[in-house]
């Protein structure tokens, strides 16, 4: 039974999205009705609702699991405390951000026409300083600008932006930077002459690297550049296109096998169910 349910859960969305793809711009379903590809929006909303419920359920599960860990002092229970602390810190940051956004809409956005007017004044009268342009504004616009400045001073620190720009992004950049070392080490290992294939690869890489560099072209009177170009545009492109054709056909065949329920590996064994 479980296998059939999993198969149906795979089959229906697959057929639906196939129809959506091929029905783009097709006739509506009945007089004044929706087109199949337009129903995608409503299905998408349904998926968002289900996801929101799943997240809610996930939070409850997470709390229950880690609360039990912490209360019963199970192995590594300290990490459960870190989960709670992290969760509430992030929620507090997001609530603060919500307040900042609401304030921006209330205070900062009405000041936009004043800023626009300053721009126009300075364009029409070159040499006019910002302070002089502000003095020329109407009292309402000046008041709006003052409210905006007060908002900027009050909400100078934005925790969410801080978490994203000063914590998450630097961490990601650090991890990404590791790739440079990994690539260098992997390239060194690849270029060791262990076999005939490795030798061919090393020679090919040497031609492409030196040929793409102006020094290689200069040393060989441009010959290496031509060889590198041939390697890239003919040999490499041909191989890539050949693989791409194979992958394209294989993807359709594999998707069909999954849709027809022939891939038993993902349908569940049906045994040992509790």
């Amino acid at each position: 039974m479980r296998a059939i349910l999993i198969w149906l859960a795979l089959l229906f969305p697959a057929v639906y999205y196939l129809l959506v793809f091929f029905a783009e711009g097709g006739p509506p379903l009945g007089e004044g009705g929706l087109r199949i590809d337009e129903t995608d929006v409503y299905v998408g909303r349904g998926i968002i609702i289900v996801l929101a419920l799943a997240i809610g359920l996930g939070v409850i599960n997470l709390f229950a699991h880690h609360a039990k860990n912490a209360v019963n002092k199970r192995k590594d229970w300290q990490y459960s405390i870190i989960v709670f602390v992290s969760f509430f810190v992030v929620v507090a940051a997001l609530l603060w951000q919500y307040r900042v956004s609401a304030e921006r809409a209330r205070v900062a956005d009405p000041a936009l026409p004043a800023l626009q007017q300053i721009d126009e004044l300075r364009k029409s009268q070159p040499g006019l300083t910002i302070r002089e342009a502000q003095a020329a504004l109407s009292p309402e616009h000046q008041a709006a600008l003052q409210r905006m400045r007060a908002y900027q001073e009050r909400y100078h620190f934005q925790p969410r932006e801080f978490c994203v720009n000063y914590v998450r992004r630097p961490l990601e950049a650090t991890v990404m930077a590791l790739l440079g070392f990994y690539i260098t080490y992997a390239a060194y290992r690849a270029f060791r002459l262990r076999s005939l294939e490795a030798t061919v690869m090393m020679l090919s890489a040497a031609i492409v690297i030196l040929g793409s560099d102006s020094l290689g072209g200069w040393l060989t009177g441009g010959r290496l550049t031509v060889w590198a170009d041939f390697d890239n545009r003919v040999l490499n492109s041909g191989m890539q296109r050949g693989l791409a054709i194979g992958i394209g056909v294989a993807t359709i065949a594999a998707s069909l096998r999954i849709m027809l329920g022939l891939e038993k590996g993902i349908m569940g064994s049906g045994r040992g169910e509790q």
Partner: protein
Amino acid sequence: MPTDGEPTDDESLRGHYRFAAHAALLMLIVLGVLAGIWLARRGRALPIRDIPGLSAFDEAVARATEMGRPSLFTTGGVCDPRRVQLYASMPLLRRVAALSGELGNRLIVPVAYAETLPVHANATRDGYIDAGALGNYRSDDVRYFPGGQFFFAMATMGWMLKEQPAACFYFGWWEADSLMLAETGQTINALQIAGTDQLYQVPFFVVACDYTIIGEEFWASSAKMSGEPGLLGSLGAQDLFKLAILALMVIGMLLCQHSGFAAWMAALKKVLG
């Protein structure tokens, strides 16, 4: 008269032609694959060559067991539920879990997406059930590492350094995290097998792994491993289609030397947009 942004009649017609051409091509391939499956079930399957990476599955898990270290299987940090590569990898995870169950080895499975956690957990559990070793299955070993690609990569690298898996399997849709994990596997002297249809990641796996399953071999893996005639039949049909495409390319190249045909092709290209 169409207003700004609305397609003209010509554009709309071209769109219909294009979709009709796509649909016809898709139907042709689908019918061909179905015919291949039908023929194979009647005992007329084409022979499929061995894929060394798949044959090494048993060796890798056995080696890990002998060394008293676990095995690791992951679909990477970007293989989200929309990727069909995820579903194509699950039979392989199930196979590794079955081998681990048979040999009494531990299998650890890091997962990057909460939605795919049950998919991985089911495949792992089913593998242990296949081996008659459900008692060895530990749900804690299928672990969700949230936060995105690089945080997943860091957490998995940490887990690898802690648990020291001696057999690492990387299958699915991969991006920059491929080399990070494969290089970590190298440093802990693991026997590594990777498979992806992401051509940009293949070189990284080739230099860092012992076996790499490239491109369409990845899609053939589960069928080849199962040995079921129906699935093998679909692989034979794929190969025939590739031959047909190759033949069409050669015929097209020859015909394009004739100016009349070249003009006709240009007109067809214009109609299809």
